[in-house]
């Protein structure tokens, strides 16, 4: 299995979370933003076309009202119905009335009153009429209703009424120009009014409004010429069918939204055109920002993941290296981990554990060494060969003198002494055994020295099972004999006594020999090795006690010159194991 580092895992996790988060968030916000934009545009466009329609209705309504006012004017009415060569006075009054209207309302370009006879009166009597005028030929008149029932409104058209100009107007006609029963009245609204109104409206960068009438003819379009040349097209049929509302279409390779409102008064449909690509341009900007922020966050996240993982993995790596060193047996390694987190704590715990292991290892080594030394010391404390030589010499001597029973006793005691001494097994034996061994030693010496040596054993029976070391007492007794008793005048006495004090057992080996001055006592255990063999026995015993039972145990001395010496063995009062 491939090992995946914490670092790569972290970086992957961070990147994934950030990418997915940004993607989902970005996509959602984009979609919502786009939808909101389109809805907002549709709402404002609906308001716009509605408002535009009301304004146009206002104009057309005004033209209609104006037409009715003129039509119902008593002078006009009388003149229209009057004799064919009209009354000049009345004609003058009608002309004056007509002339006054465009002066009040400049957006009304002209008023044209046509009598059934064909006589034409205009609000610009100073202007020469176009001699080629043929009103009846104009197609938009076809549907003109009788004057009483309403009026007809033209699309934007060229008024060629006057000889000296062509004028863009929207015309409203009252009456029936085709048949002319009772004549007819035409009101021309200057097209500039509508053109200015619509041209100012810009929707987005290149959106616009246009107006078509119920017949599908364009009333206003900012690119009329393009529409007529076929360079530009609009979905006029769909718009007329729709009458009111929204229509999405693809025109000229661009997606757009038509917002249509149709006036019931004029039958004109005002259409707002908004291009989707322009609408969504800001959404695209948002998309760019989202992507940029996403990439930025990704970068930062990767960087942070890298840093964080370093903070974790670097101490772990150090710890791992240290543990590798420990594996190879280097328990003295220093775990150099500087981290104030869990890894740091782990490292410190490891350090403590390694320390413990190291101590244990050390202790084990020391113990091994101690054991080894103990064995060595015991070997060294083997029985003084002089003792064997002297004893054997005594036995020979007894046999020569024919003291066979003594020789036998001594020989058997010697045998017992050796049997006790060579017993193998643990170093620890009971005080009882050790005492037996010492007694056999003392009884041999007693046989050799006779009255010169007295001895007694005074140990409380409950102490007999105390664990002591093999060959513990014999060297002390031997010392007491050779350096204490043997040097004094007259008989001497050796007492081996045992007593329990607290958790200790003290076994005292006392003699009433020559004793020692205090400075000699102080040097007993310090004397350098190999100088005096006698002292070596003491040091040996002392070391063995300390090694075996611990440093708080061992030997102490009480001595006074001429009075004797007591060696005190300090032992733990342990129950027999």
């Amino acid at each position, binding site marked *: 299995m491939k090992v995946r580092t914490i670092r790569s895992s972290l970086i992957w996790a961070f990147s994934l979370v950030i990418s997915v988060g940004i993607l989902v968030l970005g996509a959602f916000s984009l979609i919502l933003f786009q939808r909101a934009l389109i809805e907002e545009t549709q709402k404002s466009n609906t308001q716009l076309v509605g408002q535009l329609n009301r304004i146009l209705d206002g104009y057309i309504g005004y033209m209609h009202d104006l037409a009715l006012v003129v039509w119902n004017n008593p002078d006009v009415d009388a003149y229209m119905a009057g004799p064919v060569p009209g009354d000049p006075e009345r004609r003058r009054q009608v002309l004056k009335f007509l002339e006054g209207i465009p002066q009040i309302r400049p957006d009304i370009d002209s008023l044209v009153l046509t009598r059934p006879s064909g006589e034409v009166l205009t609000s610009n009597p100073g202007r020469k009429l176009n001699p*080629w005028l043929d009103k009846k030929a104009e197609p938009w008149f076809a549907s003109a209703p009788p004057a009483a029932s309403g009026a007809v409104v033209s699309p934007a058209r060229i008024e060629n009424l006057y000889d000296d*100009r062509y*004028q863009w107007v929207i015309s409203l006609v009252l009456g029936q120009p085709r048949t002319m029963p009772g004549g007819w009245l035409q009101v021309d609204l200057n097209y500039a009014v509508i*053109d200015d109104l619509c041209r100012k409206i810009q929707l987005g960068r290149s959106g616009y409004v246009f107006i078509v009438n119920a017949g599908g003819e364009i009333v206003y379009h900012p690119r009329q010429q393009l529409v*007529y*040349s076929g360079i530009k097209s609009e979905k006029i049929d769909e718009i007329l069918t729709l009458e009111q509302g929204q229509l999405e279409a693809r025109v000229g390779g661009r997606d757009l939204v038509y917002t249509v409102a149709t006036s019931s008064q004029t039958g004109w449909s005002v259409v707002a055109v908004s291009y989707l690509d322009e609408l969504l341009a800001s959404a695209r900007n948002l998309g760019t920002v989202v992507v*940029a922020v996403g990439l930025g966050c990704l*970068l930062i996240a990767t960087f942070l993941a890298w840093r964080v993982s370093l903070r974790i993995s670097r101490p772990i790596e150090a710890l791992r290296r240290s543990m590798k060193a420990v594996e190879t047996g280097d328990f003295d390694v220093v775990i150099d981990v500087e981290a104030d987190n869990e890894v740091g704590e782990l490292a410190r715990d490891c350090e403590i554990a390694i320390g413990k292991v190291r101590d244990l290892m050390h202790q084990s080594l020391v113990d091994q060494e101690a054991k080894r030394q103990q064995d060595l010391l015991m070997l060294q404390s083997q029985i003084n060969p002089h003792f064997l030589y002297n004893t054997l010499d005594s036995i020979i001597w007894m046999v020569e003198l024919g003291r066979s029973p003594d020789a036998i006793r001594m020989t058997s005691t010697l045998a017992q002494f050796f049997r006790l001494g060579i017993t193998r097994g643990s170093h620890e034996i009971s005080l009882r055994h050790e005492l037996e061994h010492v007694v056999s030693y003392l009884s041999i010496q007693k046989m050799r020295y006779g009255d010169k040596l007295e001895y007694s054993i005074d140990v409380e029976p409950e102490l007999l099972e105390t664990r002591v070391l093999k060959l513990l007492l014999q060297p002390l007794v031997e010392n007491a004999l050779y350096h204490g008793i043997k040097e004094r005048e007259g008989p001497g006495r050796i007492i081996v006594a045992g007593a329990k004090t607290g958790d200790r057992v003290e076994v005292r080996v006392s003699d009433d020999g020559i004793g020692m001055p205090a400075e000699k006592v102080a040097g007993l255990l310090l004397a350098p090795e190999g100088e005096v063999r006698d002292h070596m026995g003491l040091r040996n015993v002392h070391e063995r006690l300390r090694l075996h039972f611990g440093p708080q145990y061992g030997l102490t001395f009480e001595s006074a010159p001429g009075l004797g010496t007591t060696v005190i063995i300090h032992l733990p009062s342990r129950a027999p194991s």
Partner: protein
Amino acid sequence: MRSPTAAVLFGLLLVSCAPGRDSRPHIIYIPKMVDGANTFWATVKEGALSAADDQDVTVEVRGTSEETQVDEQIQIVEAAIRDRPAAIVLAAGDFLRLVPAVRHARAAGIPLVTVDSFVATDDASAKIGTDNRQLGRMAGGSLLRMVGAGSLVAVLSYIKASSTARDREQGLAEALTGGVRLLPTLYSGSDQESAYRLTQQLLNEHRELQGLVALNEPSTVGACRALAESGRRGQVALIGVDASFEVLKSVEAGVLRSVLVQQPFNMGYLGVQAATELAAGRSWPRTLDTGAIEITKETLFLPQNEKLLFPVTVLNSAHSVLKP
């Protein structure tokens, strides 16, 4: 270390999002003349500016006040090349003399679109305007519908050396050859007065004349005046080219049977559109005929023709076409 890095990243983010300055392609449009009273050129300009709005480019108009200032126009083109626009739209004042300037534009890697009037080189990136031969053929076809086979007809052209006149004459000849008896071509020098006199003379010399084609606006106006005065409007079918107030009045009066009208708005519009496309590295047809429309008394006030003949936005504030 962490926070400065984050700050730098954030800064980069802001910089990348910061709005730049106006980076829309800049197009220089050089017409034959910038006189606002000239309906034709005003309409071309209107088309160009409309296209600028629709295409999201900026259009700057640079030009001479007279159509005849060819040297000045050459200088304007050279200066425009030095300004390194995204593209140039040019209505060449001279077929031959503008050739070096057009070549310079090409050498500078600036797309140059010729509109209405072209140059005698293939170095222009695109040609947009009326196919004058086709216009001549249309005029011929129109005449043939009005006069019988074998009728005597005359042609009133304008400048012999002009490439457009030559093309129109050629097209006309193609249409008329074999159908009618053709008098030698007359040249008005693009002058109304001269056209008027030539037509008077023609009408006097050839009582049996049944058809006359005037190949540009001044020639048409002059011919109309002469024919109207002669009182032979019913006998001589007059065909004209290019509209003006007087021309349209003559159509209304029935003096001018039909007039062929070019599409200046479309020239300007398509010229800028072509320039935009070429500047963006997209393809555009090398030549584009914007076509012509035949106007008669019957079709003069049809809505689709009204928009062409009486362009709203180039009219004066009252939105009317007044007698000049």
